[in-house]
């Protein structure tokens, strides 16, 4: 089944009838996923948005509970559920791969985060493959096919003039069912997308375990500013802090993004900080991206979208780190029993 690019806008308008459709767009000069509607013109020409789509599933500030004391003095807690039927149209394969990571974190290993779960259920993902890549894209090296996203509901492979429509989940099939007016039969060959940037990932995960005290961290971390840019533009970063906003007798408990780059992130009562210096914090972030997540969930936490490489104020580059790790000759430590 193929979908002509010309029909995109009418398709979007029809989908937006009952639901919120988020499309990549430039709002006030910032490329992000915005609610499709008048005054928002889609920017499918963007290779990728600056702000990742994770905001739809895991907003920067999410109200969790409202609590107060009722008339006879006992606590009353009411949970917010702001999840709504949403469609994210035009999400890229690397971001789809990041949703896989987020699903692992929020939905598996014994505790289901229902705020994330509610949002995730109601989200329909329409992924559009990449015909061309930015200079900072290296998704192939991280095992992501620029024209394929197994976990997307619907996959539109970019074939130049048209998209090749693949419904990959029951939800996707149901949705494609009512695209009849916009799609035609037939097939098309997706355009091959070459990436200029590639890294060699094999052996890196194991090597990292032996590099704990290796000077490469020193050289890398010394130039980091410890701002939170990379963690906030990264589609897979999922650390958050919970705090509350009190009024006299009632208040709202909310969750908000936090960054392991901030020194206050690991500040403990009494003033001890397990990661006091930049070195520990930078090492921890890259280890989490490339090693810890692999060990725990069996997949890399970096999807190669290149946003952090693009947006880092001091051009601290994960790909150069991977190259440097490759170049190191440290023998990998035996597998932890």
């Amino acid at each position, binding site marked *: 089944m193929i979908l002509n690019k010309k029909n995109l806008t009418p398709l979007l308008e029809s989908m937006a009838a009952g639901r919120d459709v988020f499309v990549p767009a430039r*709002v006030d000069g910032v490329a992000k996923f915005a*609610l499709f509607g008048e005054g928002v013109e889609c920017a499918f020409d963007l290779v990728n948005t600056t702000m990742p789509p994770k905001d739809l599933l895991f907003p920067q500030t999410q109200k969790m509970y409202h609590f107060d004391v009722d008339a006879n003095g006992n*606590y*009353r807690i009411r949970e917010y559920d702001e999840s709504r039927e949403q469609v994210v149209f035009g999400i890229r394969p690397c971001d789809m791969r990041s949703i896989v990571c987020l699903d692992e974190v929020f939905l*598996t*290993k*014994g505790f289901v985060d229902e705020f994330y779960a509610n949002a995730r259920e109601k989200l329909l993902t329409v992924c559009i493959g990449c015909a061309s890549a930015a200079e900072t894209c290296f998704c192939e090296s991280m095992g992501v096919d620029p024209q394929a996203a197994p976990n997307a509901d619907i996959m539109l492979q970019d074939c130049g003039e048209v998209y090749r429509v693949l419904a990959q989940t029951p939800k996707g099939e149901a949705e494609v069912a009512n695209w009849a007016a916009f799609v035609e039969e037939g097939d098309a060959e997706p355009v091959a997308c070459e990436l200029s940037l590639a890294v060699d990932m094999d052996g890196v995960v194991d090597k990292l375990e032996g590099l704990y005290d290796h000077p490469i961290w020193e050289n890398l971390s010394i130039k980091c500013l410890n701002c939170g840019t990379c963690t906030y533009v990264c589609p897979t970063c999922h650390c958050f802090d919970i705090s509350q906003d009190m009024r006299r007798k*009632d208040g*709202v408990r909310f969750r908000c993004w936090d960054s392991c780059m901030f020194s206050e992130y690991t500040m403990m009562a009494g003033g001890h900080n397990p990661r006091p210096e930049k070195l520990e914090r930078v090492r921890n972030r890259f280890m989490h991206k490339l090693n810890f997540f692999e060990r725990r969930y069996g997949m890399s936490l970096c999807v190669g979208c290149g946003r952090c490489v693009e947006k880092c104020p001091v051009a601290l580059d994960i790909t150069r780190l991977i190259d440097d790790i490759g170049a190191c000759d440290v023998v990998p430590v035996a597998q932890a029993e």
Partner: protein
Amino acid sequence: MSVVETNEAAAQVPENWEPKIIAFCCHWCTYTGADLAGLNRMNYPANVRVLRIPCSGRMNPQYVIEALNKGCDGVLVCGCHPGDCHYVTGNYFARRRMMIFKRLLEYEGLEPDRFQVRWISGAEAGKFRDTVMSVVEQVRALGPLNLTREIPYFELPAVPDGEEAFDAVPEEVVPEEVSA
């Protein structure tokens, strides 16, 4: 992040709306002036609440932002006349800081009358009353502060019908064993 919509709810003026103004007054001069106004049984509108600080030099611009963010419609900062400061130079520094801060707030779109600074001595009870009355009138004319602020507008979560509240502690969840 939702597109910015200034608080439409705040824009319409509720019918019996009264401006809420906070006045940071220095203990040695203006607070004394305010007390004197009381002694002379002067009368002025009750919209102004006085917060006592030792000196206008103690006035941190961050309190003004807090007040405006948390619901005040106007802020008044008062201190001794330059030269009379009990701590000699407190108000000289305050004068410079407040001049710069007032221009910055107006630059960011705050109506000039919402943030005012006035030197009122311990003997100027009349001036205190007149200042309070003029500030209240000016802020009343401007209406509620039309600034985006989430705090006063906790949209209470919709309580699912019939269910008053739910048990705060979730039911027991058995962790799956760790996959290889």
